[in-house]
């Protein structure tokens, strides 16, 4: 089912006209209202009014997460704060560094786009949608929540945590759709086995998963174990949150909502567009966002665009499931974590820069994060000092990243020997 069939199935020519109109008005607004873009355009000698075709977008400068941090909190907003009705942030960033704003109309558009994603993944008016993303500053829970309401479905805003209760709610409320990160679905499946829940008695029919890299194998496992149809969907908070792209029931790539976002794939090294259909970094330009329009935002996510038409009737191009990151960002339990940030947190907390190693693993479908820190700066015979160090590090990481690390102290010189991954990271998970 399509939520907005007249839009999701529009012809190519019509789509290009609409994209051009929206790109032109977006560029007009950012060059008038966002000094950062006005300056960038001036430096590059670009007049946004010279843009007469969609291909011209390649001339425009790229926007990075660093640009957002440099202009935090509100520097890239294209409307005054009094017109912003909502602030969110991306998971994993330390408090207050980057902020994403929405006008009333942005929230409305967001709701319709996530409604499209839910409908594409099989959900409809009759469904009871169990949202097990964490409600809070990150965009995933609210996005799926609004989408489900806009679709006319019934939302259960369970949020994350307390998994046993979640299983109870799924059974008691007869939830028919589950929205969460894929590894959490596996974790729930394990728990259901442990609790002796009969898979065939599960009311669930649809699974809408996003927030981390997962594989076809994982999809098969989830589908089998929860007896559901599992679809992949994609969002990026800087752009909007969930609702950017979502799979239809064909489950062969996610339809990008091209009437609201312009998608390009670039080579993350040369920053040039890759030939059609090739793998590279996804770059998105918002076409309708009012509060925080983004021009050629580098998502850091690796994927490719699938040019062939889809048999579901949607005309929007599809992107393959995310294959990984073009930078060193880790996604742990659906939370974005930069190793650089952990280094900084250690330095801020203890005023030293110890050698350290991040070890990410997956047990029973759930990610675990371990931080090994070389203990040359604490007295080895002072157990209390060591414990305080561990506790403070744990607390600081949990507070700033929203992620609980198992912090361990190791002897000097051990980390260089252990270090096998890139930089200070060992990722033992298989997607």
């Amino acid at each position, binding site marked *: 089912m399509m939520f907005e069939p007249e839009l999701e199935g529009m012809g190519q020519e*019509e789509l290009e*006209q*609409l994209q*051009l*109109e*929206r790109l*032109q*008005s977006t560029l*007009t*607004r950012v060059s*008038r209202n966002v000094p950062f873009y006005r300056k960038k355009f001036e430096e590059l000698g670009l007049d946004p*009014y*010279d*843009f*007469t075709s969609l291909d011209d977008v390649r001339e425009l400068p790229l926007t990075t997460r660093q640009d957002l941090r440099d202009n935090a909190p509100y520097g890239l907003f294209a*409307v005054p704060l009094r*017109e912003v009705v909502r602030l969110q942030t991306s998971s994993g960033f330390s408090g207050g560094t980057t902020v994403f704003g929405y*006008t*009333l*109309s942005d929230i*409305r*558009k967001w709701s319709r786009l996530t409604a499209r994603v839910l409908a594409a993944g099989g959900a409809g008016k009759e469904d009871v949608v169990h949202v097990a993303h964490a409600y809070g500053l990150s965009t995933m829970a609210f996005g799926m929540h609004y989408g489900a309401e806009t679709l006319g479905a019934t939302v259960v805003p369970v949020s994350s945590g307390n998994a046993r209760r979640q299983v109870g709610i799924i059974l008691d409320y007869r939830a028919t759709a589950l929205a969460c990160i894929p590894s959490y679905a596996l974790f729930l499946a394990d728990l259901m086995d442990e609790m002796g829940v009969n898979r065939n008695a599960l009311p669930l029919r649809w699974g809408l998963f996003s927030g981390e890299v997962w594989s076809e194998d994982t999809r098969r496992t989830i589908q089998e174990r929860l007896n559901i149809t599992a679809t992949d969907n994609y969002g990026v908070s800087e752009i909007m949150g969930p609702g950017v792209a979502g799979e239809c029931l064909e489950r062969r790539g996610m339809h990008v909502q091209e009437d609201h976002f312009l998608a390009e794939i670039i080579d993350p090294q040369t920053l040039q567009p890759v030939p059609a259909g090739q793998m590279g970094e996804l770059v998105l330009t918002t076409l*309708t966002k*009012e509060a925080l329009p983004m021009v050629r935002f580098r998502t850091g996510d690796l994927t490719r665009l699938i040019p062939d038409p889809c048999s579901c009737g949607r005309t929007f191009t599809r992107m393959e499931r995310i294959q990984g990151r073009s930078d060193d960002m880790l996604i742990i339990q659906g939370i974005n974590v930069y190793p650089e940030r952990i280094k900084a947190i250690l330095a801020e907390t203890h005023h030293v820069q110890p050698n350290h190693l991040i070890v990410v693993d997956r047990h029973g479908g759930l990610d675990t994060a371990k931080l090994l820190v070389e203990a040359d700066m604490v007295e080895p015979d002072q157990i209390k000092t060591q414990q305080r160090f561990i506790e403070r590090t744990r607390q600081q990481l949990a507070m700033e990243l929203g992620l609980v690390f198992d912090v361990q102290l190791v002897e000097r010189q051990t980390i260089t020997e252990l270090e096998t991954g890139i930089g200070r990271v060992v990722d033992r998970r298989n997607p």
Partner: protein
Amino acid sequence: MLVLKNVDVFYGRVHAIRRVSLHVHQGEVVALIGGNGAGKTTLLTTISGLLRAKGGGLTFEGREITRERPERIVAAGISQVPERRLVFKPMSVEDNLLLGAYQRYSLKNKAAIRKDIQEIYEMFPVLGQRKDQPAGNLSGGEQQMLAIGRALMAKPRMLLLDEPGMGLAPALSQMIFRHVAELRDVFGLTVLLVEQNAKSALKIADRGYVLETGRIILQGPSEELLLNRDVQRAYLGRDVEVE
């Protein structure tokens, strides 16, 4: 139905319309809103061919009309209702309507034209009641009805309406807007509507474009634009002027 791509228009040396792209689908009412001097009328006049685009292209039902003469554009199915109504005041109401059918006037069309006039009297009964009076005797609202009726006599598929509510009492202006919605809903007519009164226009329109100093700064479904502050400001701008 109507597609504009990167249209540039100059008024002498003034770059009045800059790289404007917009489209209107069959059966839609699309509102073009913006303050005084934003270029709304200029854009409308360019579509009807009275002004020439310096750059970019216009197509109507897939056919290029960028360099077409105004009378050919009327024949192609686009009729404009000019701002401030501009009816021929000394002429009778009925003669004004007949003039609207000038393009297709011939002996064999005579009966058809008669029938069309009757239809317009049904839609605007007051015009029928006063058909023999000079148009100049009509009230502002009635003159607006006459101007719309006259444009309809050319049997257009698309109507360009320039500020139909201008200078009318609010109740009258609401009535005109209701008639515009009726043209779409009952007769399937496509309408591009220029208006400073953003609120009234967006209430009946399907979509809208916001023009500011010759450029489109916003566009989208009417219900979304109504939530936007820039649009609200444009609307307030008009109120201030009226006062």
